[in-house]
């Protein structure tokens, strides 16, 4: 690795007016999207293509007594009906999850959550396929369901996973991090200890495009091509090879334009496998696209962490320690997508942004009769839960101490001189200036004035004859540290696949370039940003650099886009590839200029002879020379390209300070987000416009989770969030006009100093909104989402559990 550069936004512009490197640049991908010419999976039509639809379980837990498909098969437009029995014959009824468990592709013995896949119909068109679902008769024998995770380990709880040999309970794992003994000592002697229970409810990423696939098995060549909504095409290819026993060189996974991912499109769903099986069975391409209810009920949910936190401090507000017990509801199968060594993801980064010596967490994971998943929705491998925990606990402490939460945070934030900082649970934070970010957020917010306004309003409200409908004003803060860019191969793999990323950069003779990435965009703008990274290093215009991604036949191997890892890992790979091309160009330029390499000096996009500025070669000239008959030094091959596998030495640690201001209607419980101030530090911004867009989207997620999003269940395990009528996403009306700020602290180990940002706001914003609502209500704790009903009940001193329909 070359020494770290700290790039400033590049000032030179290309012929098309784009920055020759970093800076605001309009997106290359937009031209097709604004014309309705994006190519999403469901847009694909292949000759002879058939359509699949999945019959799903109506019960949360039931034995399958029988399945009668004869009427469906008799439907004139139905070509095949596949059940678990069919798959058993192919040894495909079960497949591995990303966490070493297995999951049913189609249920054989019993169904374990409402919405589980039971049968697959393939028909000439989608309407007929769905008609035929109605014709399938399934006889179920309902079983009691495990709905409340707190009762999953009760001795008399029904055993969900009796398919696993020797299974007598619903326990998945216990996992610990930190030093329990040291923690106990700190807590035993602390002046103040505050404990609180909180639920981070089950939510769903719900990208606007649902999941789907078109599979085509070419019988003659034996080649399987699958166009699918995946955030990790290469990992999917390998898994298909392992699951189906297909030769990997004959599998091509194409991830075309993806209508949002947010972690929903990391896993392999039964529908994808069924489309493949369908194509094998029928000999023609098969399309399967789920509807919204299927998406919400069966694909990867997020969170569902029941947390008990305890924070220890001195009476004057110095935090001494934090410990937490988590009950993790994993659903009926353990299907979380995260590095193998970390079954609770990166939750143990829960010590957050503060300086204290003692920390410990214990996570107990259980099976319940709900859909599988857990790591999704821009969570950075559960740092959402971790940040929520610590930021709520800090606020609980402030509440008990009667201290301003900003002051308490300022008192405990890590100081700039402490970086690189090794946390009590072993993370090495690469760089940061936390107080500066919080100060900046407070400056933008006008924090003192806001508190003054709040005091005045409270005073008014306390006066006799005060208006009972006067809104209650609340101010909430959160400070987050993210850990993104998984990750060092030695520590991080998914299903045994190390998390390093390949990248290839090739300059054509005319000096135009192609960059092949293993990651791919679901809206993040890779086609633009990655061109800018290369441009930043070698100075050719970003419009001359074509970014190729999302096709395993045309890109090098890598683990995909999630966990905000594209820029930290593949962005580094692209930068290193460009640096190598630049160095090779230097050798070729020296040959062309008939001088020694040492005599050359670089200016953006051009090598020239020291002391003779006119004698030089641009990258385009060098590219042509590299492909010409020019004699090159011994050992130097022609052409101008580089291929890199980047193995990150550490994660990057973006951070930020968020402040939210809400007004709560005391009579209806309705919460209005008046303002939201977000100061993010993700190092230098490659394209500030795109970074801001990423932050905006994440802030809306935070408002959604804090105020309306939850997948709740009734006592029979019926999913109560199975449509957009029930699972509410924030609209333009609930979102304020975001107020953004930034500080810039480069990563010392990333070749261009940048950190990931895709999930920062989703991770950081929920506690800010929740802290604001609770501040308005002047109560210490209640669980999100703060729908009017939940808020109103909390205001009455009778908070309710948001994740269950019954108390």
């Amino acid at each position, binding site marked *: 690795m070359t020494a770290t550069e700290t790039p400033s936004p590049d000032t030179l512009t290309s012929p098309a007016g784009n920055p020759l490197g970093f800076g605001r640049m*309009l*997106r290359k*991908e*937009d*031209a*097709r*999207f*604004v*014309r*309705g*010419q*994006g190519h*999403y999976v*469901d*847009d694909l*039509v292949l000759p002879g293509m058939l359509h699949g639809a999945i019959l799903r379980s109506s019960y949360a837990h039931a034995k399958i007594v029988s399945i009668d498909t004869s009427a469906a098969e008799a439907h004139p437009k139905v070509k095949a009906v596949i059940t678990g029995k069919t798959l058993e014959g192919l040894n495909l009824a079960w497949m591995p999850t990303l966490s070493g468990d297995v999951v049913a592709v189609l249920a054989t013995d019993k169904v374990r959550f409402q919405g589980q896949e039971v049968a697959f119909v393939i028909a000439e*068109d*989608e*309407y007929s396929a769905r008609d035929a679902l109605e014709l399938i008769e399934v006889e179920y024998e309902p079983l009691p369901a495990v709905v409340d995770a707190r009762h999953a380990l009760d001795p008399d709880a029904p055993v969900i996973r009796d398919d696993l040999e020797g299974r007598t309970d619903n326990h998945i794992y216990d996992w610990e991090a930190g030093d329990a003994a040291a923690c106990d000592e700190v807590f035993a002697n602390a002046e103040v200890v505050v404990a609180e229970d909180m639920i981070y409810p089950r939510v769903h*990423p*719900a*990208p*606007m*495009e*649902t999941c789907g696939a078109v599979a085509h098995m070419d019988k003659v060549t034996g080649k399987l091509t699958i166009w699918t909504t995946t955030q990790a095409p290469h990992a999917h290819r390998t898994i298909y090879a392992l699951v189906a026993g297909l030769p990997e060189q004959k599998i091509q996974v194409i991830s075309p*334009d*993806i*209508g*949002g991912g*947010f972690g929903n499109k990391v896993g392999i769903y039964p529908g994808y496998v069924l489309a493949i099986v369908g194509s094998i069975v029928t000999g023609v391409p098969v399309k399967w696209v789920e*509807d*919204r*209810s299927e998406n919400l009920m069966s694909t990867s949910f997020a969170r569902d962490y029941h947390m008990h936190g305890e924070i220890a401090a001195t009476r004057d507000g110095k935090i001494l320690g934090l410990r937490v017990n988590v009950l993790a509801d994993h659903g009926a199968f353990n299907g979380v997508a995260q590095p193998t060594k970390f079954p609770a993801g990166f939750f143990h980064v829960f010590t957050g942004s503060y300086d204290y010596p003692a920390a410990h967490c214990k996570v107990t994971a259980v099976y319940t009769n709900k859909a599988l998943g857990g790591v999704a929705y821009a969570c950075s491998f559960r740092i959402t839960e971790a940040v929520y925990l610590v930021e709520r606990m800090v606020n609980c402490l402030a509440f008990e101490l009667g201290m301003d939460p900003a002051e308490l945070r300022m008192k405990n934030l890590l100081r700039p001189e402490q970086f690189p900082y090794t946390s009590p649970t072993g993370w090495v934070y690469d760089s940061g200036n936390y107080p500066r970010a919080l100060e900046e957020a407070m400056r933008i917010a006008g924090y003192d004035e806001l508190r003054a306004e709040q005091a005045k309003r409270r005073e008014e409200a306390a006066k006799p004859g005060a208006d009972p409908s006067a809104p209650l004003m609340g101010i909430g803060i959160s400070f987050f540290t993210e850990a993104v860019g998984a990750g060092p191969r030695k520590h991080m793999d998914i299903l045994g696949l190390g998390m390093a990323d390949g990248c290839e950069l090739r300059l054509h003779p005319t000096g135009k370039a192609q960059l092949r990435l293993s990651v791919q965009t*679901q*809206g*993040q*703008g890779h086609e633009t940003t990655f061109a800018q990274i290369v441009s930043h290093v070698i100075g050719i215009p970003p419009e001359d650099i074509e970014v190729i991604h999302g096709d395993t036949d045309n890109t090098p191997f890598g683990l995909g886009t999630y966990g905000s890892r594209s820029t930290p890992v593949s962005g580094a790979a692209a930068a290193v590839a460009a640096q190598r091309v630049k160095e090779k160009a230097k050798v070729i330029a020296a040959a062309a200029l008939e001088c020694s390499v040492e005599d050359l000096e670089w200016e953006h996009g051009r090598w020239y002879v020291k002391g003779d500025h006119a004698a030089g070669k641009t990258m385009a000239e060098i590219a042509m020379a590299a492909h010409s008959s020019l004699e090159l030094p011994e050992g130097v091959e022609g052409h101008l390209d580089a291929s890199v596998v980047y193995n990150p030495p550490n994660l990057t640690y973006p951070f930020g300070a968020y402040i939210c201001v809400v007004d709560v209607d005391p009579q209806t419980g309705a919460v209005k987000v008046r303002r939201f101030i977000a100061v993010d530090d993700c190092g230098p911004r490659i394209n500030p*416009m*795109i970074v*801001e*867009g990423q*932050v*905006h*989207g*994440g*802030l*809306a997620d935070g408002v959604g989770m804090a105020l309306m999003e939850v997948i709740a269940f009734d006592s029979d395990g019926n999913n109560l969030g199975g*449509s*957009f*009528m029930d699972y509410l*996403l924030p*609209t*333009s*009306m609930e*979102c304020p*006009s*975001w107020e953004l700020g930034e500080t810039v602290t480069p990563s010392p180990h990333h070749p261009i100093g940048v950190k990931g940002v895709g999930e920062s706001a989703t991770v950081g914003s929920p506690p800010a909104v929740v802290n604001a609502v609770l501040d308005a209500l002047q109560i210490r704790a209640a669980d999100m989402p703060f729908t009017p009903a939940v808020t109103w009940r909390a205001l009455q001193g009778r908070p309710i559990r948001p994740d269950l329909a019954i108390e």
Partner: protein
Amino acid sequence: MRVTIEVNGRETSADIEDRLLLVHYLRNTLGMTGTHWGCDTSNCGACTVWLDGLPVKSCTTLAAMADGRSVRSVEGLEGDTLDPVQQGFIEEHGLQCGFCTPGMMMVARALLDRDPDPDEATIREAISGNLCRCTGYENIVRAIRWAARKQAETGRSDREAEEAVL
């Protein structure tokens, strides 16, 4: 049944099932996939097109209901140049994954045709039936403001509305 529907100024006609939704008529029968589908409950707006000049959710409209009427979809926005709304979405980064974008733009175009100078609150209300999971709406609002300004500067508004006047 047979329907005849004018789509973006072109007459289309097909024999369809009575129950065929307009979104599927556009996407599957005509192969015009710019209009998207995102939910089962008429909540997301990804499918928004115009029916006789007014935005409708084509997932909740039968193709039969459009018989003899005119439909305008995202593919009908661009004239000799991009519609200011399309340009605005590019200039202000009003889209990320692009899935909600066609529906958003159809609503935005309709808004600007009836109110060429909408303020932020008006814009937010106009797009409140359209969900976006990527942008947090801020840049969509800015994109529509950009289009409004552009139209005011250039005197150009909607191609289709202009043609109707001619």
